[in-house]
């Protein structure tokens, strides 16, 4: 016994709730999420500043609901192989990122795939996207996605579904990692929207300083891209008060890497979190500093954006220091702090004073 208008009403209610929730979540997360991560971040600070026993997050706040965006090359969806173009594919959003399913479905559709529906998976914290159902193997192979898993789609029973995880947000993705200039360190090569390449290098992470590379790049949208790598034992990183992202493994990265997109924050803060999200160490600060900053290290400690600039861009950019053009390699050699973003001119500031 079902009534069309009632059924449609329920669907619209759910869609309206999702939209309202999405609006609330972006740019500002729900209070619950803020409280959860604030507890985490405080724990990290206690550990690093005083060396006391780290405070564990309060019960119930271990896994803050947060917006997780880690990019995989989904912005390069390939056309369907012969025989798959007419197979109706359901796209399911397995994250809390609003619009992820629609964005991906649009890309699939543009590439020639047939989209049946866009639905929400009951699971909202899926990390890796996957393909499930009849013919999943062929679709998985065509799109380079893993296959399998059990999902609930809230009453909808798609025959073939791509379930999107946190890796599906098309903000940016790591292309490759290569050895860095310091022993054990590495460089991450990223591709930003519009194919802008970006490279940043860091030192090898250690148990006492679990974060090896932490970079903040400004995206064309004005949002921040926070990425880097950390020790093997770093399961997740807390970024600011509001965001926790899982770390991932990639060949060439010492330990694990992380990548997340956030709204600009007053100060840069990244905390490394181990098993059960226990704080391991951190860089930056939750509050902006009034101090006069004279070096990149100081800027880093104070959470100033200048301390987290990408070390180089392979794009056509002019580096400027004291009004004159300077070679990026020279800027690096002299330890200048250069704010690399998508603009054609990169401004570098003073090197740290001797000693």
């Amino acid at each position, binding site marked *: 016994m079902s*009534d069309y208008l009632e059924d*449609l009403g329920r669907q*619209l*209610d759910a*869609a*309206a709730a999702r939209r*309202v*929730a999405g609006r609330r979540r972006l740019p500002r997360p729900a209070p619950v999420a803020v409280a959860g991560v604030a507890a985490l971040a405080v724990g990290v600070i206690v550990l690093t500043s005083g060396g006391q026993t780290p405070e564990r997050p309060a019960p119930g706040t271990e896994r803050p609901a947060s917006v997780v965006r880690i990019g995989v090359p989904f912005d390069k969806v390939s056309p369907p192989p012969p025989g798959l173009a007419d197979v109706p594919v359901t796209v399911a959003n397995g994250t809390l990122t609003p619009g992820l399913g629609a964005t991906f479905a649009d890309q699939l559709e543009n590439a020639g795939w047939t989209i049946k529906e*866009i639905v929400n998976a009951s699971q909202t914290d899926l990390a890796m996207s996957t393909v499930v159902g009849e013919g999943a193997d062929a679709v998985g192979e065509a799109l380079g996605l893993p296959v399998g898993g059990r999902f609930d789609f809230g009453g909808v029973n798609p025959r073939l579904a791509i379930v999107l995880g946190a890796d599906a947000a098309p903000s940016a993705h790591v292309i490759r990692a290569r050895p860095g200039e310091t022993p054990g360190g590495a460089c991450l090569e990223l591709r930003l929207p519009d194919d802008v390449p970006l490279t940043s290098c860091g030192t090898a992470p250690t148990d006492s300083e679990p974060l090896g590379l932490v970079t903040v790049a400004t995206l064309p949208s004005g949002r921040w891209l926070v990425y880097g790598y950390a020790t093997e034992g770093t399961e997740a990183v807390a970024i600011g008060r509001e965001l926790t992202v899982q770390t991932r493994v990639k060949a060439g990265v010492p330990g694990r890497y992380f990548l997340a997109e956030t709204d600009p924050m007053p100060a840069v803060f990244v905390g490394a979190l181990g098993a059960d999200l226990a704080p391991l160490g951190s860089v930056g600060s939750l509050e902006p500093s009034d101090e006069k900053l004279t070096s990149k290290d100081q800027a880093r400690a104070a959470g100033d954006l200048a301390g987290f600039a990408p070390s180089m861009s392979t794009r056509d950019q002019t580096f400027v220091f004291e009004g004159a053009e300077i070679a990026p390699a020279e800027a690096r050699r002299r330890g200048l702090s250069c704010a690399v973003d998508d603009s054609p001119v990169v401004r570098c500031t003073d090197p740290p004073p001797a000693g």
Partner: protein
Amino acid sequence: MTSDEELLARALTDPAAFGAFYRRHGAAVLAFLVRRSGSAEAGAELTAEVFATALARVETYRPERAPAIVWLFAIARNRLTDYHRSGAVASRARRRLGIARIAMDDEALERVERLASLDVSATVLHDALDGLPAEQREAVLARVVEERSYEEIGARADVTTTAARQRVSRGLAALRHRLGDRP
């Protein structure tokens, strides 16, 4: 009673507000679309797409431009025109919002047909729209749904901007008058 316009304004922050708007006008839109499409199934699917479009665009609705019901039925007419032109029910907005297609059995189809045969009072709106001179109707729809500028509307109809503005305001005035006469 909360006005339609208030409900749409509140829909930005209150999920229940859009639901209330739908429950007020869903039957009328369904009846209108089933009658005009000549198919219970197409009418039902069009109804889902119309409300999904309205929900997706709710932040663009401007009460000072037109009453909410005019806006809603203008969307319905646009979708209906697309349907007659292409023979297929658009589903982009519905899918974009993650609204599943609702399968209908014979019994459900029959109920929809019965509903459409009833004279649902709010359908006076489409009759009101139909009652407008063609050029006023086109101008109102272009302004309210497509959000065209008066310049564009004028250029399209090959009249001055002032004339386009006049057509829109006269059309809306006529609609308001008719809708206002409703109990």
